[in-house]
């Protein structure tokens, strides 16, 4: 779950940094609102896809759920 939290934190951090950067720039308000919208769109899609990725790849991939390595002591040698 730590990967999920980290990914969300990174997406939000990048989003807020870009928003702050755009806010400080002197651009026409029409373009500015368009960039805000585009950034929000990318942020939302990024968050949704992160959850989909988490569900598919990370959720059951904890150390206790891993397949035993080849030749480990859990292998049945009999």
């Amino acid at each position: 779950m730590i990967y999920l939290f980290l990914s969300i934190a990174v997406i939000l951090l990048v989003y807020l940094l870009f928003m702050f950067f755009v806010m400080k720039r002197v651009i026409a308000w029409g373009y500015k609102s368009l960039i805000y919208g585009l950034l929000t769109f990318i942020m939302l899609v990024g968050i949704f896809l992160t959850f989909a990725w988490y569900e598919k790849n990370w959720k059951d991939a904890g150390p206790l759920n891993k397949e035993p390595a080849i030749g480990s002591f859990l292998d049945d040698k009999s």
Partner: protein
Amino acid sequence: MRWLNKKLILEFVKRDFEERFAGSVLGRLWSFIGPLVNILIYTIIFSNLMSARLSGVDSKFSYSIYLIAALLPWIAFSTTILRSTTVLIDKKHLISKINIAFPSMPLYINLSETVTLFISVTIFSGFLIIFGHPFSEYSILIPFIFILQQLLAYAIGLTLAVLTVFIRDLKEVVGIVLQVWFWFTPIVYVKEILPEFVKKIIIFNPFFILADSYQSIFLWNRLPDIQHLVILTVITFILLISSYLIYMKLESDVRDFL
């Protein structure tokens, strides 16, 4: 013209709250009491008196959670659209005096309703914690689905606000459409009871995707359909751009009509 005048929008949001509870003794406390009483009523009536249960969920409050999880967002969504529809006509005295562009007006209503929704959902979450209902990691998704929902409401609200200036009957039409929309969305009933052909077309109802997502997270603690959410995000942004273009095209005519 600066349409994203943050200070002015926040002042509008503050004033909207003050106007709503003006003259009352408890003031802003009413914004907590209202949702609290609503949640209590739904819980007591459906869980205790009617003993309504959902199959597959081992909880006495299953139906109440199912209902409230989608009903609170619906109230915010429909109220935002309904209030946005008439905002330009209602506030025409302000528009003529203050140098503010039209898109700010539905925006302050949107923010005001989002605050109300936030208060309601916080109280609802408090209830779930008290009753020992488990939360999953998917709960983190809820604020992002709220953002998507309110962006959709804003896009619809801005378009309707501009069009209502020319067609005043739209206000009544929107009220009726919202009623039909509510009953066409599985909020009070479960989607499994719908006929097969309705199940196939209900996916085109945007609020169904939102309601289903809230119910999946709050009640079943499972991940909502991400594919549907991404499609809805794309549609919402197409609607946002369209509503902005409609506003740009009709702005000068709207000022003349007001």
